[in-house]
């Protein structure tokens, strides 16, 4: 009897042993397999939607793209950009490099694991595939701009992810550019038009504009850098410029120019003039009905998709990293409303308010001036620069009322809301915003106006910039901004790029800077134009702050605390604000023989022996 028990026990043990390996099979309970995931439209969309997250946009904190141009001559910041001051070290490219390749892997993973049979492919799924081609082009363009000659990641490399397998040489920059364009051409063939997604998804028009930008970038780089250490092998700028025009023509065919721009006639938000129509491209929540906003990102506080740019702009912040301000050089770029260019030395510009009078409307919409709101006036008064009145100047009530309405730029105080040039950012200020840290003003990522500017520039480079071309590109932009059209003439005080420009080119570059200011284009333009003269050895100025100017006089000279601040504001010998004069006595230390490109990370060079370092980064 006892024996039976033991036998039963032994049997139990035996059964356990046999079932053991099955017992150890523990598959995930909540996640599907990735091998077959990309096999339906919904699944594909969920993955592609995930890829959007790496695109640069306004994030939780910070001024994002609105302060990016402190890497150029448009913004001065007490925490200036170290790259344009030649402060980068050979390790400074690390993050940009690895992020771009990491994003490229995600993109290529899609192509490797795309499992939808061709027969099941619909217009919608094809368009999603097009978005991925667009994104692969996007990340290669980032690499092209920063590092030039780079390995092209045209497939998923997980299969040979060993040290040996990754000894991959860089492609020449021209080949990289051609690869980007070929991806974009595929995208253009697959993507749906803007109207299908109201511009919320990557679309065909967007891809065309991107292709124009890439071709223009490479074309001008190959032209202007043909004699320096950054030259492409076998440069062919003409070919790239022609491509810009080809892409442009197909875009114009899809979207006639008079339909593309957001004007007072088309503006869905009820703009009273062209200037306001322009400003609405930056301070509205919903761009579905604005065709000029080809591709934009929607924010919604109630869903936690939010940013703090609006609240930062409302507090006068130009750069969330430090006290900053827009430059005089940017302000001087804008024409008079009659189409004539300004003479920066004209004494009228010593008057803060006069500076804005009778100018291109985009100046008023980009730079904060008297009368412009920071946000809803229930919280903060509009800016108002006026001479401070003292007892005896008028009746006591008048003096009090007058002074109470004065709201000069925030030149004093602490923190990043303090302005160091007198010029706060107006672009993107939402006057309906009251308070709360986060807000949901939309962000336009790609705009139709870029196409017009690229087209005109390529045409001029090719010698084909006829009056007809100008009439359909630069002129409508100018006219929207309330500037009368005048035939281009040489402006003696125009920004010096270190070489002469044709009057047409000068106006195209001026227009580009005016129209695209504070949207993240300026450094790229300076680099591709070989425009280091704009930066190297220079530093920007701000508004006039001599004690004969109204800006200076808007402060109460009887208030000791205020005067302490005012006295300490650095100005140059002529009385213009010169905030970085102590920090950068010799101007930016941009090194033209080196700083056009970022260094390839040293560990990357040690691990991939096929790579070569960019010029003058030992």
């Amino acid at each position, binding site marked *: 009897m006892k024996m039976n028990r*033991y036998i039963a*026990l032994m049997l139990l043990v035996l059964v*356990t042993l046999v079932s*053991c390996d099955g*017992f150890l*099979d*523990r*598959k*995930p*309970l*909540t996640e*599907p*397999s990735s*091998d077959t995931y990309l096999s339906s439209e*919904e699944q594909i969309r*969920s*993955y592609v*939607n*995930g890829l959007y*997250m790496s695109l640069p*946009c306004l994030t*939780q904190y910070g001024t994002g793209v609105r302060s990016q141009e402190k890497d150029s001559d448009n913004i001065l910041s007490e925490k200036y950009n170290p790259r344009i*001051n*030649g*402060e980068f*070290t050979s*390790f400074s490219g*690390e993050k940009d490099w*690895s992020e771009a*390749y*990491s*994003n490229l*892997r995600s993109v290529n*993973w899609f192509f490797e694991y795309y499992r939808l049979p061709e027969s099941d492919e619909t217009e919608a799924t094809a368009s999603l595939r097009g978005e991925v081609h667009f994104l692969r082009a996007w990340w290669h363009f980032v690499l092209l701009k920063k590092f030039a000659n780079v390995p092209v*990641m045209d497939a998923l*490399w*997980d299969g040979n*992810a*060993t040290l040996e397998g*990754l000894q*991959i040489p860089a492609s020449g920059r021209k080949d990289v550019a051609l690869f980007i364009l070929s991806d974009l051409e595929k995208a253009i063939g697959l993507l749906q038009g803007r109207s299908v*997604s109201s511009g*919320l998804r990557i679309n065909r028009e967007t891809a065309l504009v991107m292709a124009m930008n890439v071709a223009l970038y490479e074309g001008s780089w190959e032209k202007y850098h043909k004699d320096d250490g950054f030259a492409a092998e076998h440069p062919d700028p003409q070919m790239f410029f022609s491509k810009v025009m080809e892409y442009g023509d197909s875009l114009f065919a899809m979207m006639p120019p008079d339909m593309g721009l957001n004007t007072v006639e088309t503006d869905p938000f009820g703009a009273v003039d062209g200037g306001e129509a322009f400003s609405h491209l930056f301070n509205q929540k919903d761009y579905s009905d604005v065709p000029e906003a080809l591709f934009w*990102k929607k924010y919604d506080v*109630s*869903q*936690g*998709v939010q940013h703090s740019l609006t609240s930062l702009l409302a507090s006068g912040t130009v750069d969330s*990293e430090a006290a900053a301000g827009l430059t005089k050089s940017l302000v001087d770029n804008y024409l008079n409303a009659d189409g004539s260019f300004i003479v920066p030395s004209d004494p009228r510009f010593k008057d803060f308010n006069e500076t804005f009078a009778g100018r291109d409307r985009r100046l008023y919409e980009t730079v904060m001036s008297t009368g412009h709101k920071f946000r809803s006036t229930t*919280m903060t008064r509009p800016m108002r620069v006026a001479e401070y009145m003292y007892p005896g100047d008028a009746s006591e009530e008048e003096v009090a009322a007058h002074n109470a309405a004065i709201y000069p730029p925030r030149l004093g105080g602490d923190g990043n809301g303090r302005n160091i040039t007198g010029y706060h950012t107006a672009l993107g200020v939402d006057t309906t915003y009251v308070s709360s*840290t*986060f807000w949901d003003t939309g962000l336009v990522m790609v705009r139709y106006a870029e196409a017009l500017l690229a087209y005109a520039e390529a045409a001029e480079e090719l010698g084909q910039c006829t009056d007809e071309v100008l009439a359909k590109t630069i002129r409508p932009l100018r006219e929207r901004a309330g500037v009368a059209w005048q035939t281009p003439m040489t402006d003696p005080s125009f920004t010096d790029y270190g070489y002469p420009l044709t009057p047409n080119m000068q106006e195209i570059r001026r227009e580009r800077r005016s129209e695209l200011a504070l949207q993240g284009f300026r450094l790229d333009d300076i680099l591709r134009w070989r425009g280091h003269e704009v930066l190297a050895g220079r530093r920007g100025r701000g508004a006039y702050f001599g004690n004969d100017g109204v800006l200076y006089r808007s402060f109460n000279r009887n208030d*000791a*605390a205020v005067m*302490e601040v005012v006295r300490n504001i650095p100005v140059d010998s002529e009385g213009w604000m010169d905030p970085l004069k102590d920090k950068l006595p010799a101007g930016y230390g941009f090194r033209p023989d080196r700083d056009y490109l970022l260094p390839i*990370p*040293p*560990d990357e060079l*040690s691990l*991939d022996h096929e790579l070569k370092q960019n010029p003058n980064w030992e």
Partner: protein
Amino acid sequence: MKKLNHILCIFLFMAVTATAMSGQTADTLVLDESIVIGMGRQKRNTVTAAVSTIDSRTVSARPVSDLTGALQGNAVGFNIVTDAGSDAVGGEPGAPVRFNIRGQGSVNGGEPYVLVDGVEQSLSNVNVADVESITILKDASASSVYGARAAYGVVLVTTKSGTEGRPTVNYNGSVGFSSPIGMPEIMASVDFAGYMNEMRENSGQTPLFSPSAIKRLEDFASDPYSESFPGISVNENGDNWASSYYNQYADTDWFDYYFKDYAIRQSHNLSVSGGTSKVNYYVGAGYLSQDGLLDQVEDELDKYHVNIKLSALVKPWLKMNFNNSLTVSDLARPLANQTIFYALISDRYPTQTTVLPVDGEYSLPSWNEVMYLKETSYTSVSVSDAMSLSVTATPLEGWDITAEMKARMDVQDNSFAMGFPKTTLPDGRIVVTSGSRQGYQYPGMHWKNTSFGSYTRGNSSGIYLSPNVFSTFEAKSGRHYFKAMIGFQTEYQKNSSSYTYKDGVLSEGVFSFSNSDGTVVSDELRNHWATAGFYARMNWNWREICFAEISGRADGSSRFAPGHRWGFFPAASVGCDIARTERFRALHTPFSQMKIRLSYGRLGNQNGAGLYQYLAIMPLNPANPNAWLLPGGTSDISQGTVATVPLMVSPFITWEKVDNADIGLDLSLFNDRLSLTFDAYQRTTTDMIGPAEALPSISGIPSGSRAKVNNSTLRNRGWELTVNWSDILPGGFSYSAGFNLFDYKAVVTRYNNPEGMISNNHTGLAANKGYYEGMDLGEIWGYEADVLFTSGEEVDEYLEDVDMSFFKPRSQWMVGDLKFKDSNGDGRVDPGKGTIDDHGDLKVIGNATPRFSFGINLSAGYKGLEISTLLQGVAKRDFPMAGSTYLFGGRNYFTDHLDHFSNDNPSGWLPRLTDGTGAADTDWRVNTGYNTSRYLLNAAYMRMKNLTVSYDFAATVLKNTGISRLRIYATCDNVFTLDALPDAFDPETLNIVNTWAGGSRETAPGLTTPMVQNGNGKVYPLSRTFVFGIDITF
């Protein structure tokens, strides 16, 4: 010299012998007591493995809420890991305490396996009052039978059980209080104003505080919060309070404001035990209440324990044991994870007020975190029930068959409520805060998806089952003793958790889903794993003089793919107690034991592998806060569920092999009054899984996502020494002294990094992401820089010879900056190529691994009165503070920071003040962002962990009272600390990384990259706990 040594030795020996002769025989036979070992008990003198034991007396009176804390310093080789716990918070009630045995085993981690009465369980679920003994198994031979999860040591906790005889009732209760220790001292606001002005001046900015503002600060100090100096005024628009700190002029010590001076704690334990010859029982119940140190808000932990043990001799050949251990803990505090709060406290400005000059219903200012914390409430009730039923049949004398079923259920029920914080404006209007706030969310949710006026409920459950069947056979044949065991065990664990969130709370004060009308968010998590193992062990001894043991286990784990799943892990040990041989006895030495032990064995570690890493899994996230609002298909414009790129699949990973070799010596002398144990060991983990080899970034695969392979080796060598002396003198005076000391060093001996890339934080190179062959774990790469520039000429002269443009342009170097040494003499200071062959001026300047950890136990007693103490410490440790705001100013304003370089104070320790609040501040980064020899801290310390005074009433006094034993005691934890750290740091929480303040667990202990401020030290303070207790037995 040698002679002198000799003489000294002899003298010492004679002295000790003389003392021994005069003493009496110790009344317990220590060597014969049976101790708990892997799946059984064994007489201490026959053990051949490396084992430490701790008895209940050592821990029972300690005022700790987690047993782990009581083991520190009491067991050699036992380390509390204060480093970089995931969102660790220091001394917060209920905070998990992590530990390891003999140091870090694998670069992938691997924690000791804890068994409480045979069931895997967290030490924090053990009622200290129920503990009978604790055994720590340290080498492979000891833990071999536990297999799969025992590679890095096993802790066996045995609770009390009933014994045959009269039932006894015991009550053990204590009451006392805790006070925070190591609190930083905040600058007075006048000092703060000067500090800020100096910082801004150094950064080329205008002063912030004008002379008139400083005057106001001084006036406030003389007449605080008065009508004339309320500390704050209305802003210039007249619509709100002046919110910027430089427009306020109070003088607030925020640490004093947020933390209490003391918090009450109490514990009560009652147990009943007894038994007959056939049945015995033990039932213990305990209650612990610990108030937290946070002031103004709810912060409390209550714990309840019920422990039941029954054993019965059902039939003469059948024995049954049943244990059930229930722990309920009830935690209440404002937020689930308060790291953000601890990060924020230390950068509050002393000029900000804590009260507003209005009598509103709500008048806390918005910069006062209590405004938000008061309106939020997190509660977590967790229930853990561990039980085991074991039945042992004894078919023949010496042959046992045991079948056990062990089970544990962990259930948690949590809620998180967020009300509407309010402030009163100067005109009496009340402003209600809406939207979300960083740090305010239910665990697992993202704060962006959580808004004020919401309610979240969540549950989790874990089920653990582990059947175990084994059979032992014991036999004696002449002078030989044999014991053999064979068995089979499996483990299965299933976890699930979920939460539901709803916002739009309708009426205030009531939090429920029905009282809300807003967005619903919900998510879940489920997983499971299993292991299985066959094991066998054989013991032999000859007259208890020579011993041998051989054991092995075959283990399978669900973490590995079929074909890579099973591993076989054998172990063996031998020992010999020379003192018991007749020849030795004949010498009449004072030795009662002189045992030499040798063991060698291999164990498997599976911790390097994630649960499902061999499978291709699609990462899906239904609530990714970074997802865009996108249209598509039929859905509205929404974030939806996003899929992200999968990690690489690791199909080939298998067990890491942990080879342990241990040589040990056990000595007992003078009637066992003196005992000494010494162990030296080597633990080599081969086939260690990843972390991934160094690959170029063009792979596009972040190092954490790469396919893992078993490709590296870590070697850990160490030694341990324990010496104990205890004696009772003829007059009834007893005393004892114990000392333990251990040390180890772990070196990476194989790693796939052929280019020798160095990745170390705060060097200018990539942050910790890889290893190289020959790397000491914890090593700190940095620059030699011992002094600050003290004159302009010195700067100019130095820059003539040395190029320091790697740090910043030549024009920016100034007096008060760090003078970096050109260590390799190449005329420039830089990290070279960042490889072993060319590391420029970088060198290893220290090591953050604790070395020479020690514990000292001292006690003395006379007629029932006893005083005892425990000292614990680390004799050698370096700690890099680079990038830390906490030490280097930036955003912390402690009196410590006043000791900085300035023209008035050229010998200041800290560099010249610069503004560290932005990401791109070069000056601040150069002086404080790199590891340098000047700012390498000495983190060695010694702490009096405990001091206890107790009195046992004599039996004669208790006669006729019905009380058989009565003991009263007073005990204090964390009495004092000796260290060389700056005041604001505690050596035990030094390296806790505050993720909210920019720290990251991955990059600890080097913390983050030079560019980012990091948050080490931003923690809940540890406390000094003082309690009175009574222990009474009827």
